[in-house]
C-alpha cells in the first residue's frame, strides 16, 4: 500500500436491533482439516465488519457459507435473530446477501445490463433500457460511474467490481460481502473501494470486508474479527477500534493474527547499495526493448543488472510486468531491441538455450504455467530438464536419478510432501512455490526473474522465499524482482524501477526517501 488512507469518522451503530446475521458455533470440515471451527460472529447493519486472516485461516469457507455455496456441518446461522439455512445462492440473494468475489462473477461475454438481469423470469424479454436506468441510478447513489451497455470483458477489474457492487444494490442487498476485493486492484481503485464501503455503511448497509491487509482493515473497518487456522482468535469492537490510534490498533491485530510473533521485528534493513561493483560488466542488459504482442505493449525498456544486485520492478499489476518477464525468459518474441547476458545477445535464443545460459524464471502463475498439476512432484521438479542426463539416458527415464534429485530437493528446500510421487496440485501453495524455487535455483544460476514471488503465500513462506531471493543475489546472481508489494521491494532491492503502461517511468536507488519517490512515480506525479 502506498500511504495509509485517512481514517474515517465512526458511525454510531445502534445495538438494540438484532444483527443482520448471527453465527453461532458454525463449523465446516473438509477431509483432513477443520476449515471453520465453531465460529461465533455478529454482523450488524451500518457497520463495516472486517474479517482478517492469513491464507488458509478459513475466511473463504466462511464467505461461501454466507453466500449459500457451502453448508455448515455444525452450528446455526441466524438471520435477523431467527434461525434460517442459507441453502443456495438463490436463498442468499432472497435474504439480501450479495457477495462480490475476488474473481469477478460477471459473464465476460455479456454486457453489464445483461449480467444484472441474470436470474429473472426465463421467457421474458430482458428490459435492457429500464435496467440500465436502474443501474445508473444505483451507481449514482453510491458515487460510481459506469456504462451499463458496455461488454464486461472490455472493463478493468476495478470497474467490474464496482459494477458488481452496483448490481448488489439493485437487488436490494442488506449485506454486502467483499471477498479479498482489493487484492487485484490498483492502490487508487482500492482506496476508492474503501470510500465506497464507508458510504454503503453510512446508508445503513451491513458490509463484510475480507482481507489480509492490516492497513485496509484498520482504515475502513468498524469492527474486526481475526481468524487463524479456522478459529476465531479475537477481534476489535467498534469502541476499541475507534478508541485506538491506527498504530496501536494494528499492533493489537498483529498480535491476534500471529500469536505475539510480531513480524515487524524481523524486518531486515535494505541491502547496502555500495556493495555492488558497477565497474564490472553487467550480468543482464536490456536495451531499447519493444514488444507489441501483449495486451500492454512494452516500449523502450532499458536497464542493467549487475551480479549480486536485486533490481526491483514496482508498479501496479497489469502494467506490462508479466510481459517483460515473458520476453526476457523467451516465452514471447520481442519486436525490437536487444537482451544481453554476460556480453552475449540472447534475444534470439530459445527458452531452453536461455536457461542453459543460466537465466531462470520463477513464474507467479504457479498452477497455470509453472507446473502440471496431475504430475508427480518429482517430475515437476524436472519439467525444464526433460531429456537431460542423468535423469534420462538416451531418452529413457532413469527412475533412480529422478528419485534422488527429488529427495535432495525435498531436503534442501524443505518441501513438505507426503511423497515425491504426490501430484503437485495436492500440495499447499507454499510447497508448490518451494518446488518452483528448487527447480529454478539449482545448478549454474546467473540471473533470476522472480515474478510476484510471495503472492498468495502465508507469512512463514513469504519469509522463506525472501531469504532465498536474498541468498540468490549474495551468491552472485543478478536478480530481477517483480512485485506489487512495495515493502517487499524496499526490503530486498538495491534499485527499483517503476513500470507504468509498458514503460519504465523511473529508476530509484533504494535509499532514504525511496518510498516517497516510488509513490510519486507510480501515481504519475513525476514523469
Amino acid at each position, binding site marked *: 500500500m502506498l500511504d495509509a488512507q485517512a481514517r474515517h469518522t465512526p458511525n454510531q451503530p445502534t445495538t438494540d436491533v438484532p444483527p443482520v446475521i448471527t453465527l453461532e458455533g458454525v463449523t465446516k470440515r473438509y*477431509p*483432513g482439516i477443520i476449515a471453520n471451527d465453531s465460529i461465533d460472529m455478529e454482523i450488524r447493519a451500518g457497520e463495516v465488519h472486517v474479517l482478517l486472516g492469513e491464507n488458509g485461516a478459513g475466511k473463504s469457507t466462511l464467505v461461501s457459507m454466507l453466500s449459500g455455496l457451502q453448508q455448515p456441518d455444525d452450528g446455526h446461522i441466524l438471520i435477523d435473530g431467527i434461525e434460517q439455512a442459507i441453502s443456495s445462492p438463490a436463498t442468499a440473494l432472497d435474504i439480501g446477501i450479495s457477495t462480490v468475489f475476488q474473481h469477478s462473477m460477471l459473464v465476460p461475454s455479456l454486457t453489464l445490463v445483461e449480467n444484472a438481469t441474470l436470474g429473472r423470469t426465463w421467457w421474458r424479454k430482458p428490459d435492457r433500457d429500464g435496467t440500465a436506468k436502474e443501474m445508473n441510478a444505483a451507481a449514482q447513489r453510491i458515487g460510481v460511474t459506469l456504462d451499463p451497455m458496455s461488454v464486461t470483458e472490455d472493463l478493468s477489474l476495478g470497474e467490474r467490481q464496482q459494477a458488481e457492487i452496483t448490481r448488489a444494490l439493485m437487488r436490494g442487498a442488506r449485506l454486502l460481502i467483499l471477498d479479498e476485493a482489493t487484492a487485484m486492484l490498483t492502490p487508487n481503485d482500492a482506496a476508492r473501494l474503501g470510500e465506497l464501503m464507508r458510504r454503503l455503511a453510512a446508508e445503513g448497509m451491513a458490509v463484510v470486508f475480507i482481507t489480509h491487509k492490516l492497513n485496509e482493515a484498520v482504515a475502513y473497518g468498524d469492527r474486526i474479527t481475526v481468524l487463524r487456522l479456522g478459529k476465531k482468535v479475537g477481534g476489535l469492537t467498534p469502541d476499541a477500534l475507534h478508541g485506538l490510534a491506527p498504530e496501536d490498533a494494528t499492533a493489537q491485530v498483529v498480535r491476534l493474527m500471529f500469536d505475539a510473533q510480531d513480524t515487524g521485528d524481523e524486518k531486515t534493513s535494505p541491502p547496502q547499495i555500495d556493495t555492488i561493483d558497477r565497474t564490472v560488466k553487467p550480468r543482464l542488459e536490456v536495451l531499447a526493448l519493444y514488444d507489441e504482442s501483449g495486451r500492454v505493449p512494452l516500449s523502450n525498456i532499458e536497464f542493467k543488472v549487475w551480479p549480486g544486485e536485486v533490481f526491483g520492478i514496482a508498479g501496479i499489476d497489469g502494467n506490462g510486468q508479466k510481459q517483460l518477464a515473458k520476453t526476457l525468459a*523467451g*516465452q514471447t518474441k520481442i519486436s525490437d531491441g536487444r537482451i544481453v547476458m554476460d556480453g552475449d545477445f540472447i534475444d534470439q535464443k*530459445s*527458452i*531452453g538455450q536461455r*536457461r542453459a545460459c543460466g537465466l531462470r*524464471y520463477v*513464474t507467479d*502463475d504457479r498452477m*497455470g*504455467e*509453472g*507446473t*502440471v*498439476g*496431475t*504430475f508427480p512432484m518429482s*517430475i515437476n521438479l524436472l*519439467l*525444464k530438464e*526433460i*531429456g537431460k542426463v542423468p535423469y*534420462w539416458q538416451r*531418452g*529413457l*527415464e532413469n527412475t533412480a536419478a529422478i528419485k534422488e534429485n527429488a529427495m535432495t530437493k*525435498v531436503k534442501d528446500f524443505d518441501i513438505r*510432501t507426503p*511423497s515425491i510421487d504426490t501430484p503437485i496440485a495436492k500440495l499447499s501453495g507454499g510447497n508448490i512455490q518451494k518446488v518452483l524455487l528448487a527447480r529454478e535455483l539449482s545448478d549454474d544460476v546467473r540471473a533470476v526473474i522472480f515474478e510476484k514471488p510471495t503472492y498468495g503465500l502465508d507469512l512463514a513462506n513469504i519469509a522463506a522465499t525472501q531469504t532465498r531471493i536474498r541468498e540468490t543475489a549474495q551468491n552472485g546472481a543478478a536478480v530481477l524482482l517483480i512485485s506489487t508489494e512495495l515493502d517487499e521491494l524496499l526490503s530486498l532491492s538495491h534499485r527499483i524501477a517503476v513500470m507504468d503502461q509498458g514503460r519504465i517511468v523511473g529508476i530509484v536507488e533504494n535509499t532514504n526517501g525511496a518510498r516517497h519517490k516510488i509513490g510519486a512515480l507510480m501515481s504519475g506525479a513525476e514523469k
Partner: protein
Amino acid sequence: MNTGTMTEAKVTKDIQQKFKALSRVFMMSLGPVVAAFILSGMILMLLKVNPFSYYGYVFGRGLMSPTGVQATLTRMGPLLLIAAALIVAFRAGIWNLGGDAQFLIGAVFCAAITPLLAPHMPVWCGLLIGMVVSAAFGAIWALVPAFLRAYQGVNEIITTLMMNFLGISFASVLVKLAFLDPSTTVPQTRTLPVDARLPSLFGTTISSGLIVGLVAIILVHYMMTRTAFGLRLRVVGGNASAAIHAGLSVPLLTVAVFAISGGLAGLSGGVAILGQYGNVRADWNPGYSLAVVPLVFLARFNGFASIGFVGLFSVLSIGAESAARRTGVPNYFTLVTVAILLVMLAISEYYGAKRQKAGA
C-alpha cells in the same frame, strides 16, 4: 518422510492398505465389466434369450473353438494399432476423432501399391514398403488438422471429424477412379496374392499382423510412460501453458502427435490389407476407430489394459456373429454391450473419485 520404527500395528496397517488398494483396482476395472455383463444379460432376458446360452455361444466361438480363436486374434492386429494411435493422441490431450479416415487412406494406398510391387521383389520387401506407405499416408491425412491445431489454434474435434468424412469419401473415389482393378467388374483395387501377404503364425490362420499390433501398442505404452519424448507429449497434454513455460515447442510436438497417431492408424489399415483382406472394395469402412475409442478409455490409456479390452471386444464381435445365427440376436448387440461397459466404467470412475475426495 520420517521412517520411524515399524511397529507391528503399522505392518498390519500397511497390509490392510495394500489389500484395500488392490481391491480398489479390482473393483475399478473388473467391477464395471461384471456389471455390464449382468446388465446385458438382463436385456437378453427381455429379448427372451437365455443370457447363459448366448454368452456360451459367444465365448465358445470367440475363445474356445480353434477357428474362432484364430479369427479373434487376427482381428486384434489392426484394432491394437488403432488403440496405439488413440493412446498417443489422447495422452497428449488431442482428440483425434478421425482415425477411420486415416485407417482407410492408409489401406487404400497400401492396396494400390503392394499388388504392383509384389511380382518384382521379395515378399518381405513388398510388405515393408506396404507398411511404410500406409503409415505415411495415414500420417499425411492427419497433418491438416495438425497444422490447424498447432499454428492456428483450430479445435481438432471439428477438423478431424471433417477430415474423417472427407477421407472416407476420398478413399471411395480413389478405389473407383484411380486404383480400380481392370480385371474385374467389382469396384475394388487389385488383390495382393495370398503368398505375398503377411505370413500366418505357426501354421495357424492367425495373421502376423497381431504381432505388429502387439509390438506397436507395447512400444507406444513405453514411449508414453518411460521416455523423455513421451513425457514431453504428456506435458503438452497435461498443461500446454506449462509446456511453453518449460521451453517445449508445443506446435512441433502437436504436429508430431498427429503424425504418429495418424501413422499408426494408417499402418492399421495397411496391416488389415496385408494380413487379411488383400484389397479394398469401394465403400468399405469397418469403422474400427469409433469402436476402439471406448476401449482405450476403458483401459485408461494403458497399453496393456488396452490389449485386454481389445481382446475382449474381438471375442465379443467374432462370437456375436455365430451367436447371432444360433440365437437370433443380431450382432449389433455387441455395440450395446460395449456402450453399457463404458457407462459402467464412467460410473465406477465417478464413485472412485468421490470416495477419494471423501477421505482416506
